[in-house]
């Protein structure tokens, strides 16, 4: 079983290493403890904009050369921004480990040039336009805005056309300066490498990382969680796309795995929503998942259906959630736990798969859990645990948003 090495460098930057001598590749990622949650309504989209700008090069290395170096690693470099994390990652063959570390680190020292900001603004506006054509994204954005109210977790990660158009280079630089300090950054590395050499490298090359500002305490206000069904009418759509949400548990909560099992029993591939809504032909998709944030959680799901079937589908959806207590049997809990445990194992079979689990867990909870730990946590879940989740998170009050060629639902 690979051992996890956890160091804090003098600069304050965290190093998480999980070497695996049998792996055929190495994966590395800078996990930055920042995201759209920290943005004011005027600055919406700043975190995601910065993520794009990091690929525009540093003072020493221009965009073209940086992208060439990333491609030289084998084309597995990418990044993503969420509400609470921004992650830059790459993977390569073990013989290219020095280039992997140098290039990924160069990426983290962006020049943030005005001209690059101008060009990239166009790319992000196209990205916003792309998602605005996707009904599932439109309905989810509105759902989160309604559920969270003025809590920043309800803001769109990409921002809006207006905010992205008006974000100035100075504002973006200020965001970057404040939020990319060493205390917020974790370098995680998995796969085939020598942990001692890597630690030496990090101590030498990452020692002058700027300090920045600490991650602000998250906004612990509860969500607005309105008990309503909002309808967004779009006569050009053929189907109704519906999303619904209610509170869940945070990433820290000891019953987190039990919450995943409950979501699987209700809205997994073999869950009750499947058998009541899809197997009967009422909807062509229906699901429920448990989403975690550092201090919050939600059960978020929905369905798509013909417009005239949407009222019946919503009634059934609500009924399934109301009757969720009947699904929590010893056999069902054991079956779901086993499936989720095997999924955890399969995800960990490549360094890239393992990297995200390791890094995101640490960012969310400060814990370093091995794959065995994660599997054991699923195996330990009892019927009583899942029942307790349902007691803590009753599902009889839902915030609902429906989008489609209907005037009301």
């Amino acid at each position, binding site marked *: 079983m690979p051992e996890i090495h956890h160091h804090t460098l003098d600069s304050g930057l965290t190093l998480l290493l999980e070497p695996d001598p049998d792996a055929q590749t190495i994966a590395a990622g800078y996990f930055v403890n920042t995201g759209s949650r920290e943005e004011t309504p005027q600055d919406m989209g700043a975190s995601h904009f910065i993520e794009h700008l990091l690929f525009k090069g540093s003072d020493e290395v221009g965009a073209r050369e940086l992208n060439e170096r990333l491609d030289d690693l084998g084309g597995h470099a990418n990044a993503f921004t969420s509400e609470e994390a921004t992650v830059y990652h790459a993977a390569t063959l073990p013989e290219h480990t020095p280039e992997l570390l140098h290039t990924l680190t160069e990426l983290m020292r962006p020049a943030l040039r005005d001209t690059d900001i101008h060009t990239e603004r*166009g790319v992000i506006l196209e990205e916003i336009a792309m998602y605005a054509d996707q009904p599932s994204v439109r309905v989810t954005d509105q759902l989160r805005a309604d559920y969270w109210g003025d809590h920043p977790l309800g803001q769109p990660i990409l921002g809006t056309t207006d905010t992205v158009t008006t974000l100035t280079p100075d504002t973006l630089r200020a965001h970057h300066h404040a939020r990319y300090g060493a205390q917020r950054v974790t370098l995680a590395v998995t796969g085939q490498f020598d942990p001692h050499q890597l630690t030496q490298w990090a101590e030498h090359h990452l020692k002058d990382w700027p300090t920045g500002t600490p991650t602000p305490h998250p906004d612990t206000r509860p969500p607005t969680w309105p008990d309503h069904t909002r309808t967004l009418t779009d006569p050009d759509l053929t189907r109704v796309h519906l999303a619904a949400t209610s509170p869940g548990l945070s990433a820290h909560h000891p019953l987190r795995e039990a919450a995943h099992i409950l979501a699987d029993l209700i809205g997994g591939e073999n869950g009750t929503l499947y058998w009541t809504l899809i197997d009967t032909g009422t909807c062509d998709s229906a699901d429920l998942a448990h989403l975690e944030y550092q201090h919050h959680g939600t059960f978020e799901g929905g369905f798509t259906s013909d417009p005239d079937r949407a009222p019946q589908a919503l009634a059934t959806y609500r009924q399934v959630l109301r009757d969720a207590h009947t699904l929590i049997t010893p056999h069902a809990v054991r079956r779901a736990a086993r499936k989720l445990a095997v999924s955890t194992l399969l995800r960990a079979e490549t360094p890239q798969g393992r990297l995200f689990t390791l890094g995101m867990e640490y960012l969310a909870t400060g814990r370093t859990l091995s794959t065995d730990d994660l599997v054991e946590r699923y195996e330990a879940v009892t019927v009583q645990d899942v029942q307790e989740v349902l007691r803590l998170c009753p599902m009889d009050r839902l915030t609902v948003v429906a989008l489609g060629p209907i005037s009301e639902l």
Partner: protein
Amino acid sequence: MPVRPPPSSPAHLWTLPGGLTVVFERRHTPGFAFDLRVPVGSAHDPAGAEGTGGVLEEWLFKGAAGMDARALQDAFDDLGVRRGGGVGPEATRIGVSGLRADLRAALALTADVLNRPELPEDEFEILTDLARQDIEGLEDSPADRLATRARQVAFSRPPASPYAGYAHPASGTTDGLDALTPQGVREHLTRYGQTGSVLGLVADLDPGDALALVEGTLGGLRPGLDEPVPAPFHAHAQAHEPHPDGEQTHLSLTAPGVGPRDAHWLAWQVALTALSGGSASRLFHAVREERGLAYAVSASPILLGGHGYLSAYAASTPDRAPETLQVLREELARLPQGLTQAEFERARTGLATSVIFGAESLRGRAHALTRDVALFGHPRSVQTLRQSIQALTLTHVNDFLSTYDPTRDATTVTLGPSDPTPHPDPTHA
């Protein structure tokens, strides 16, 4: 779950007496993965009965070997396995991965699904209705609508063919679904058998035991039928699909490429990697990095009827779409000038590295083994494939490219509020 490096011994290739090709690679791992490819895809739907294969694949999982739909799904879930696959244009795949102790049971369940399905009559109407819902769902997604339209324009069905061919999505067409009967769909199942089918399997087993396991579970599969459907390409076609309220105009170019058994296959792969393989690639650089014209731009190979085609895609807001289309065409048209040494080296490295990444997970390796046998006729070991890629030279690639201008015969299909092509030609629409 560490996966030990692949052994130096090559993959084992067997043909069962009934015709099923089995390709097995041993890995020292607690897991397993298999990928069964049956050479019946949506292209094999009878003309006028589009959706047959898609509905059948769903129907197969509505109960088997005396189990009803729910019991069957529970049986898979009790194993904790992860199931994947689906209906593609040329083949239907069933992929399963899990822990080794459950391999026999997973293979047996898969055999039951194919050989002893219940095909309950009362599910049939529901499944055709779900397929209809899926088709309508595609209408709500501009990118999916464009993909379907591009197939219709580039690969329309030859009138004499008994097969529906490549012009429809796996869910079918509204008219095709209306024409389906339970009997017709049941008859379609006789095509799904051992002939032309390939099972890729990766697990920690003695090869003899692996073969015995597969023979004991899948060896009783019916003979089946393997009839490739030709994909005649319509060069120079052009069409615009109006989407008045769309936020973006979506662009698709399809052009002939190189088939998997052609001597220039790898050279073409290098060229595609240089064109669209990463953030320094030509399309990404010219369209996104340099001009900020699009978020999504790509070119990828598609393989149909034994031939390779290049499929390029981009989306931009309507007033920028004409420039995006122009840049896209210019980048494709300058391929005959060849790659630079640096581009070549980068693309070759990217391709060689992707071979390792692709073989790293059990699922990835099982899929690659199956695909190799189906497309190339034999498994390609990671080592051999890397050597072949390493043996490529810039001269070889540029010699190939000197006569390869994808725009020469390309079909162009667009979807959005306005037609972005410079000379919209309604006679081709």
